[in-house]
């Protein structure tokens, strides 16, 4: 397997072998360090790291204090089960999920998609991309930055188009009229219009993106693919948060941030 991986230039038998060789080479090159050298190279946790951490903690605290000063967060009135505030929004860091909830079956948007991302896709990255070289280096491959930029642009085009489509055409109305035109009743089923079609719309752009990247940048190793997919995820995440925060008003419809209908009615 290892010798087939395109990034691997030498003929080492595998990652473990490579590592062993690298360590042996390093030892041979440098030889054992003298005590004095060791003392010079050593940096102690205390004070070096702890001081930095302390300063970071203080800065964080300070910014929280300033923010709580500047941003008002008033307590609201008693909740009234007979009347839901309009629009009803989650805290801003959940608005990406709430935006997802607008477009598909609640099990898909609320459980399956976040569950798959958090418990399957993100943890899978290091198992799929097992190349040892440039580990820990941001954008370590020659085309990485270009791939990330292309993906970001691609995602920022696709996501708004899909959001506009669901807002102004609507998956459900479209499928309902298709179903009554063709007599294919399954199109009107929640399984299709709430789960299957949204899945196609979410996953479909991925092969398109990878195909485009392959045409433009050869895309011949796993790391490039991972960079593309991860960039797509991050950009989609932020776009959904932004749309949910600044562009959803009464009735959870799309409005400009300046529209009076962005105002919440209790």
């Amino acid at each position, binding site marked *: 397997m290892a010798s087939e991986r395109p990034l691997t230039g030498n003929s080492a038998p595998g990652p473990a072998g490579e590592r062993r060789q690298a360590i042996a080479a390093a030892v041979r090159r440098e030889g054992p360090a003298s005590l004095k050298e060791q003392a010079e190279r050593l940096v102690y946790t205390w004070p070096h790291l702890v001081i930095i951490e302390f300063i970071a903690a203080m800065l964080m605290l300070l910014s929280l204090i300033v923010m709580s000063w500047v941003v008002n967060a008033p307590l609201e009135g008693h909740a009234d*089960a007979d009347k839901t505030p309009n629009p*009803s929004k989650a805290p801003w860091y959940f608005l990406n999920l709430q935006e997802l*909830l607008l477009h598909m079956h*609640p099990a898909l948007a609320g459980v399956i998609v976040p569950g798959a991302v958090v418990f399957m896709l993100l943890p899978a990255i290091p198992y799929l991309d097992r190349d040892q070289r440039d580990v820990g280096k941001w954008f370590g491959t020659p085309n990485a930055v270009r791939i990330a930029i292309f993906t970001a642009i691609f995602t920022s085009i696709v996501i708004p188009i899909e959001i506009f489509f669901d807002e102004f055409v609507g998956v459900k109305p479209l499928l309902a009229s298709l179903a009554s035109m063709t007599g294919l009743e399954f199109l009107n089923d*929640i399984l299709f219009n*709430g789960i299957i079609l949204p899945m196609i719309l979410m996953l479909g752009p991925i092969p398109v993106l990878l195909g485009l990247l392959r045409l433009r940048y050869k895309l011949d190793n796993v790391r490039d693919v991972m960079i593309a997919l991860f960039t797509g995820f991050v950009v989609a995440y932020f776009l959904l948060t932004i749309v949910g925060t600044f562009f959803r008003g009464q009735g959870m419809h799309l409005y400009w941030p300046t529209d009076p209908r962005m105002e919440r009615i209790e």
Partner: protein
Amino acid sequence: MADTQRKQGLFHPGDGLAAEAVGGVRVVGEGTGQPGARGVSRRLVFRWLGWGTILGLLAQWTLGIVLGFFWPKKVGAFGGIVNVGSVADFQVGDVRVVREGKFYLSRVPEGFVALWWKCPHLGCTVPWKPDDKSEDSMGNGKGRFNCPCHGSIYDRYGQIITGPAPRPMDLFPVEVKDGKILVSTGPSKAVQRAQALHGPPHVTPA
């Protein structure tokens, strides 16, 4: 002196007096206590009183708060049969909110539907929007339900037009008796349906 200063009872057990203190309490004044006399010192009584009060208070809070959640709250007549009024009061296209029953009574050409106002998506209270664009042919092109949480839109039959809700709005059974409209309410009465039909059994004829 040694006797009265001995540590006793409740967090200072070990001299056997704590066990006796639970039973018949005989207060022995500090000065009058005979060495070796069976009894409870004033200190021990106060200690018990103090801790007892705190425990009692905690117990009261716990019971009040925890049990309070289990106590059914009767809000209006939700859960029973609600009399909405007479058939003659409604014109086709009318939608009236019935607060005590937590539903909307909608008059459609085929009769009546009572739509529970709880969104079948994630349970928000769905408001009736009389001035929004209509999704059916009633109300001069105006009026629909629009959930404020994820934007599901329903027509006067409760049919889901757009948005993430997995089914139409749930129904409460409607009965028309001597010109009076009676609606059975409550979560156990709610009827779920896969598709909103125009006509019986989903619509009760007027």
